[in-house]
């Protein structure tokens, strides 16, 4: 027996997914222990081992992959309860973190608070030392000033110092020297250089990524060191791997070199899970994870997750390459309300877990999306969370009436249907943001709907987007911890090398790429991957000479790039520019700036368990009164138990399919099929024609 283990620490629960060789899954939720997050990991492992008829040593000794995702760092940022840190920067520029890019969002909101910097101004200290863009040393490093700064940092009791100088991504010498002095002066204090964290142009993003790394470093180091010791002590045979925001995982020393990579990394496991579950349907997927308070959306095109370098966590840019997960405040707990102009709105405010939706009967009075789904008859009050929680549908009705139905003059059901339609519209907006907004037509994608609330909205979301197929995984509720058991190891490398294609120095480019690829390959080999398990991907950030922003285009994978490869590169740039911006200038050459190599180590594919029983005669458990989007009325609707649906079995909507961690709602014409052990495929009925198509529902004012 061998195991793959994914452990995802969240604010409330620490989720465990243990995959056996056979592909069978064991899922476990352990209460998180925020004061000492590692304790829940150890406790959970003991509980899991017991269920597998072994002990922790027995489990860890046979674990071939142990991937851990943690919100420890993210929560420190959200709660701002990290240590006091210092920033050493170029003289004259100590307010880089404060000025940001000078842009204020929400133009007309004079009360918007300014995002608070991670380093207080008196601990942001500028020192002399300057390079120009060509590498000429304009002013030498002021070593005395660095020592004076160290004295001030010591006085203030800082636990970590970020060192971020202008132009250090090209000329890191001053940063390196300053860091050496600080380490000498401040033993026991973590010192992190910006050139090591994010060697790219743009000082705000680079400084921010470095400050964030310094902020989380002391606690992360302590935590990961202790956890490693515990797991190794418990006999873990494989290295502890940590989930990163780039969608791959890495070993602890790598994480401690660039801690920014673990911020907001949990949802980055979604693409791996989506590809595992729905890969048989296709490799163009949009994964949607709808939980209690938020919706995480990610686009996967040709089997690759969309990446971004513009992600911010708590208003601070992280700068590094990240799986482009778009999150909005839309979940089961999102509150429906009527604004000052009588428009129906849902979220971003959420009732969260406490007080939770009105139907939880824990003091919540405002109507949530969950309440609306109860009113519409989609959620069975008696069978929520496998019957562990009884829902008060009368409280849902009262809340919907009081806050939406009454003010708008709608019946309870109309108001509830309205709440669902508006939250669907918000979710559609989020899905469009990762697809249409980037020039990608979502209609050729399969929607993968996970999260406890995903199945309720899946078919309607797809219909509004013109998407024909939806996949709902059977274990929709533990999507990301599962994803960690099937994720890759990934290292991103980047080198700045400025070249224009009509005068390109192919030797320099080839040498740059070869150096990165050689280092990346060596790293993965050392980590135990074989040559066939290693994939190297090349990209370059390019623009027209004189243009400002770059787009990232693939670089041909020919071992040694020649003129034809450059022609291919130029061609794909023109093409992509036209697709994204509706114009191009094909007579111009292309200016290349940052060359990138992503090195991916792919483990053996996870096995799939045997399929469930073959399709037999499919009969509903019973019927219930549920809202029909076709008629706008409450109608008798059959409910099916997922256990009764063998492989190949199909159900035609309107119908409700109840699964252990999710409920799937099918509307008129939707057809659900049990695919295999992994989940369900829904063929979505096209939007009703006529005026308004998919969005003309039955609600009327």
């Amino acid at each position, binding site marked *: 027996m061998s195991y793959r283990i994914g452990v995802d620490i969240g604010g409330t629960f620490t989720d465990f997914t243990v995959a056996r060789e056979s592909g069978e899954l064991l899922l476990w939720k352990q209460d998180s222990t925020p004061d000492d997050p590692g304790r829940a990991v150890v406790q959970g492992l003991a509980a899991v081992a017991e269920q597998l008829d072994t002990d922790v040593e027995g489990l860890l000794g046979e674990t071939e992959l142990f991937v851990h995702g943690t919100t420890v760092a993210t929560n420190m940022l959200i709660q701002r309860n990290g240590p006091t840190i210092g920033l050493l920067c170029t003289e004259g520029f100590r307010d880089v973190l404060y000025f940001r890019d000078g842009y*204020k969002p929400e133009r007309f909101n004079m009360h918007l608070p300014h995002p608070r910097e991670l380093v207080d101004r008196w601990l942001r200290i500028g020192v002399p030392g300057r390079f120009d863009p060509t590498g000429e040393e304009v002013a030498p490093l002021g070593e005395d000033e660095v020592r004076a700064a160290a004295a001030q940092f010591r006085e203030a009791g800082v636990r970590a110092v970020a060192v971020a100088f202008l132009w250090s991504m090209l000329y890191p010498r001053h940063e390196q020297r300053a860091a050496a002095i600080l380490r000498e002066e401040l033993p026991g204090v973590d010192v992190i250089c910006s050139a090591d964290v994010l060697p790219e142009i743009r000082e705000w993003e680079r400084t921010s990524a470095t400050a964030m790394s310094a902020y989380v470093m002391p606690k992360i180091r302590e935590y990961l060191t202790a956890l490693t010791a515990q797991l190794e002590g418990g006999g873990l045979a494989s290295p502890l791997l940590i989930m990163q925001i780039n969608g791959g995982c890495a070993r602890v020393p790598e994480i401690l070199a660039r801690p920014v990579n673990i911020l907001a990394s949990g949802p980055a496991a979604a693409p791996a899970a989506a590809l595992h579950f729905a890969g048989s349907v296709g490799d163009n997927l949009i994964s949607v994870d709808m939980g209690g308070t938020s919706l995480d959306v990610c686009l996967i095109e040709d089997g690759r997750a969309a990446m971004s370098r513009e992600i911010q966590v708590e208003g601070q840019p992280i700068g590094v390459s990240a799986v482009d997960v778009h999150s909005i405040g839309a979940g089961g707990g999102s509150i429906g309300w009527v604004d000052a102009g009588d428009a129906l709105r849902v979220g971003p405010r959420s009732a969260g877990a406490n007080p939770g939706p009105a139907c939880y009967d824990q003091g919540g009075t405002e109507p949530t999306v969950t309440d609306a789904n109860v009113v519409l008859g989609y959620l069975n009050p008696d069978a929520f969370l496998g019957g562990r929680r009884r829902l008060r549908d009368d409280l849902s009705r009262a809340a919907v009436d009081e806050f939406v139905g009454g003010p708008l003059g709608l019946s309870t059901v109309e108001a509830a249907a309205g709440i669902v339609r508006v939250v669907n519209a918000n979710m559609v907006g989020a899905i469009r943001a990762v697809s249409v907004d980037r020039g990608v037509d979502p209609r050729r994608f399969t929607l993968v709907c996970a999260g406890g609330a995903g199945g309720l909205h899946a078919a309607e979301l797809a219909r509004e987007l013109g998407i024909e197929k939806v996949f709902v995984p059977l274990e929709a509720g533990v999507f990301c911890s599962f994803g960690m058991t099937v994720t890759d190891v990934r290292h991103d490398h980047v080198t700045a090398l400025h070249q224009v294609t009509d005068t390109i120095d192919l030797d320099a480019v080839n040498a740059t790429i070869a150096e990165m690829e050689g280092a990346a390959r060596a790293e993965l080999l050392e980590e135990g991957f074989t040559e066939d398990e290693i994939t190297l991907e090349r990209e370059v950030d390019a623009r027209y000479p004189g243009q400002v922003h770059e787009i990232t285009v693939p670089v041909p994978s020919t071992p040694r790039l020649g003129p034809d490869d450059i022609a291919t590169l130029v061609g794909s740039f023109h093409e992509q520019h036209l697709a994204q911006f509706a114009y191009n200038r094909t007579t111009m050459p292309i200016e290349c700036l940052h060359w990138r190599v992503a090195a991916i180590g792919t483990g053996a594919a996870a096995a799939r368990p045997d399929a469930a029983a073959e399709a037999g005669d499919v009969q509903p458990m019973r019927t219930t009164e549920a809202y029909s989007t076709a008629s706008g009325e409450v109608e008798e609707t059959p409910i099916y138990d997922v256990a009764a649906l063998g492989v190949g079995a199909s159900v035609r909507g309107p119908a409700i399919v109840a699964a252990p961690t999710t409920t799937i709602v099918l509307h008129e014409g939707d057809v659900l099929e049990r695919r295999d052990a992994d989940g369900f495929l829904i063929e979505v009925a096209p939007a009703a024609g006529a005026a308004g198509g998919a969005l003309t*529902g039955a609600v009327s004012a």
Partner: protein
Amino acid sequence: MDQVTFSVMMRRLESISLEMTQALERSAWSSIIALCHDFSCVIYDAKGRQLSVHDPIPALVTSLELVVDAIEEGFGDDIADGDIFLCNDPYRGNTHVGDLVISRPVFVEERLMFWLMIKAHHIDVGAFEPASCTAAARDTFQEGLRIPPLKIVAAGTPRLDVLELVLSNVRLRNLVEGDLLAQIGSAERGRRLILEFCEEFGLETVEEYGEEVIAYADRRMGAVIERIPDGSYRGSGWVDSDGYAVKNVPVEVTVEVSGDQVVVDFEGTGAQAEGGFNSSVATTLTAGRIPFLFYADPDIPHNQGCFEHIEVRAPKGTIANPEYPASTSCATVVPAAMFHDAINKALAAAVPEMVHAGTARCSNVPQFFGVDEETGEEWAMMIFNNCGGSGAVKEADGWPLLESVAAMGGQKALPIEQMELLYPVQVEEMEIEPDSMGFGTTIGGFGVRFTIRPLKGSMHCITFGDGTANPPHGAVGGTPAIGGGQFVEEAASGRRTYVSASGHVLVARGDTWTGVATGGGGYGSPLERDAERVRREVRDGVIGRAAATEIFGLVIGEGDDPALDAAATRARRAELASRARPLVEPTEPEAATWVEENLRPGDLYLENPTVD
């Protein structure tokens, strides 16, 4: 229409404006558009009514119906699918010549349904000086190429001859061409999305939505105006100069509120300026409307429905409504920014919870131009790294780098490294200027000190700001900000030449230009600001010890991280409380003292200098 479909359609149109915005920003060529974000994309309906924007620069939207009118007046029935118009004429509905409007009518089923309007501030429009905003322009012929509405693309065919006419009249033609292409591309992106939108909802629903969303904004803005007690309110202020010899040009405004309607009248405002400090019709209209948009809940859709409640009047022959061919080169901020402040001052007594204190009025937004001595190439940039802060409001401090009410942070600062990579300059400093903001219970956004040095040849610096003499006002007992200023420092002698808020100077290779932008005005009594917060601001070096003691009444200890003496602070504050402050301050022109405080023996001060 049901509220749900309505909400869905509103979100969709906003996302279309956003997508057009992103396409233009990511694919533009000059840093003023691609990095500084000085543009806005707006959707107008077939009747020329503003329908949807996404986080726009207030002064770039809010009046584009006038350009739609001008196109219709010029072309009548000759407006076809595939046409794309270009216009920058301030005498035909535009704000100022620097803003080039690309306007694309969208036809669905052969009917004109929408106008997509993309207004972007270009780096050069061929003025007599190398800048697109110039205080020294004496008439519209000096401020640059004036382009009446014309077809840059006719029925899908680009008119290369027309494009060439434009490009032949500007500096940096490659950038201007790229930026125009990016604007046209953005319009095309918008058109495709609009077609999808219409297909999905059907034209009838789309038209119905247009009426409903305007009525919705109308209702909400009506409720905002209703909250202002009926009455006639007067406010005033001063624009530092007319670009030439006239100083302290008065701005007078009467705000007449009656029910849910308001009339903003600039009667009494000073005679039209000799230089480029006149307001175009479009800009005066936006200036009358914009303050009220800030009084409303920020999530109100900023469409024509809001504007229906506000009428703007301006007498002919004044800086608010000059006679042709006066120059309106700098209109969007000078004099418009003082119009905004004057309206806020007028309403401070009636609705103190709505108004904000004075905001920087384009202090400082330098336009640099030079020729690289090594390559012979021209370079130019207009930057927002050195612009001032916004005024405080009740319960919220101002933000830095907001530039003016006209922009309110809609523009971006250039990354220093990008600036040094793109242009032959070295930036020496960009930091918060301590004590540059007005003080109060809430304080203005901080000002910025910014120093830059040309490396490869001399550098022109052309500024068009306001407020060095007449600083952003304090409101409801808050203090005014410093006003700020600018100077050129000779590297060899250390001698400084200070310059008024606008002017044209040459910075020799190796010398430096420094701008000290003003912060925003303060709001409410400084004695009521949280004492611990002020202590931290002293520790952080943004409020000086003198101001903390004398104005905030703080008693603190010594050292880098001084302790607060709470009891002594209470006592000192009680003592200082007897000092009354006016509702708005200053009450007289030329209140700023920053320049005279900073002039050293041997330094010079120049008013509105020019370079031959």
